[in-house]
């Protein structure tokens, strides 16, 4: 019955993935084009293939200031075949780049959990890069709503 708790997961995960966070610059709202540009920079212009990535995000955010996000990339994580980097972008944020996660075969799994801030209803796009230079992507729409009036 016991779940692998977040507390336990954090303990396991410590040191297994390094993360580069990107700040909230407070500037003009980004466009899907700006997000696409970030992705193109990450992939070196290659078009990522859909699949291999599962994303856990709420359909409707309970609190846009801190939205729980976790992802898992289906990968063997062996010395010759592993996911090395994962880019997370938020299409509708002032600065679409959320974070880049860095993995090694020693990470064991290409999984991570964090919290992100969402300014408005938008797609969150996750792109994974493998050691073999292939790219995979997945996305999910998160709605940010005024709230109330339900029931």
């Amino acid at each position, binding site marked *: 019955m016991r*779940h692998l708790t*977040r507390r336990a997961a954090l303990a396991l995960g410590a040191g297994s993935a390094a993360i580069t966070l990107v700040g909230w610059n407070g500037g003009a709202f980004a466009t899907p084009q700006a997000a696409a540009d970030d992705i193109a920079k990450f992939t070196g212009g290659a078009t990522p293939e859909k699949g291999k990535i599962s994303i856990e995000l709420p*359909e409707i*955010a*309970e609190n846009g200031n801190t939205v*729980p996000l976790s992802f898992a990339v289906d990968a063997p994580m062996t010395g010759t075949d592993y996911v090395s980097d994962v880019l997370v972008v938020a299409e509708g944020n002032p600065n679409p780049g959320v974070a880049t996660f860095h993995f090694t075969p020693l990470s064991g799994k290409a999984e991570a959990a964090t919290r992100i801030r969402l300014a408005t209803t938008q797609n969150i796009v996750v792109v994974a890069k493998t050691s073999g230079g292939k790219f995979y992507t997945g996305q999910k*729409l998160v709605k940010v709503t005024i*709230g109330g009036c*339900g*029931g």
Partner: protein
Amino acid sequence: MITRREMLQVSAATAALAAGAGGLSRAFAQQRLTQDDLTRFDAVGNVTLLHVTDIHGQLMPVYFREPSVNLGVGAAKGLPPHLTGTDFLTKFGIAPKSAAAYAMTDRDFTALAKSYGKIGGLDRLATVVKQVRAERDGKVLLLDGGDTWQGSLGANSSRGQDMVDCMALLKPDAMTGHWEFTYGEARVQELVKSLDFPFLALNIRDTEWNEPVFDAVKMFEKGGVKIAVLGQAFPYTPVANPRWMMSKWSFGIREEEVRAQVDKARAAGAQLVVLLSHNGFDVDRKLASRVAGIDVILTGHTHDALPEAVTVGKTLLIASGSHGKFVSRLDLDVQGGAVKSYRYKLIPLFADVIKPDAAMTAAVTKARAPYAKELSRVVGHADSLLYRRGNFNGTFDDLICAALLKERDAEIALSPGFRWGTSVLPGAPITVEDIHNATAITYPQVYRLAMTGERLKEILEDVADNLFNPDPYYQQGGDMVRCGGLGYSINVAKPIGQRISGMTHLKAGKPIDPRREYTVAGWASVNEGTQGPNIWDLVERHIASQKTVRVAPNSSVKISGI
């Protein structure tokens, strides 16, 4: 179809009423419709599920008019439960003016209400539950889909205690929740600890460590069948209701978690998997199409009453109505880990036909005693039918909006599109109980503030998208926010931002100016620290000043895209 035949039996028994239902006495209805008619069931298989949901604090029988407008969008367009009136009767082969037509539709409501009387009451429910348990000894599970502890003066005043005490006599096997959470985390935990059965919610986690707050699943053995019951609370409680009241708990549909729990239950030997859900019907229909291995979803939240099970692949979806009007009976023949056959009946609890259970009557009387005098106090009279349910407006809400405009000297009134709230017949007194049945919440303060026309449009668009987003996972299941002093057009088929047009300030007869500020009065704000009088006091004052209330049909919302 078995269900239809069962319903036709009820209809046939009451066919004589069809000619002139309005003029016939209730005693006559009682002679023609019997408890045996209502509960007759040709048992099948080794398991019986009894399901109640969305009782909303109603211990006593009620008048509750079902919706005349209940639109489906996207893949759900035109499908049950998005059928009303004649379309509903035709789809399910129900005779107009029959007992079933009265219980399940808005057609001829006032006339039929006078003939058939009130429906529901926990003491009538107790009679049927006892009867089925006696008939199907050791095979029965009674499951409560939640929204049980809120919706009346007694429930609100006792913070759910009256409902908990009375429901305990029914000995449910499990429940889940939604409005229960608006009593706050501490009170919910306190009440849950006092239950003799589990409160199941696989989709609630604490916000700090992401750990489960409640049990996800309970295993039972009935009729030799291992049954897993999974609980799913209303996924958008912290969005639709004040998040500060349950700030340490995070909800959500969590489809992956549902899938994981179903797989785990099967691996643990479950031969029957039941999801006790407060997702809302369309969310459950989508969930059933994406998660394999659920045999039955007992749906809730959207208050739909359907006389037949809806099938999605191998999953049966049951919709048991609201306000204690119905109990669902689903018999299942489970062999080798699969449902081989089933029979279903939505049993309307006609209060004048089903004999009340004495022990429950006593418990209900005791629970209501502290408020009895206040509940029956007459405030005014209704000269037209007061009801709430429907996608866009109800006369009870129009009355509330009129009260908000007048008592708070506002230009525009906003009232939440709740689906709960009972009906008052023309000619009947309006009591304090009736007012609280439409307003009893733990955040009742009436605000008064300035909003620009642009902000008003944003609100209408936001709520409309919660109702008409073509993807059910993005719907919240309430009805449209009710407006006083404001008219608009809505095209339900458009995307967010484009549904609302032609907003009009009715008193001035002018279009709403996006840049102008309007004085707006409303209630049920999800923001912490909202100040103002309680909505029930304000509505009472308004009705008392009017003495007799007549609400004309609402023509200020123009609907298209259907």
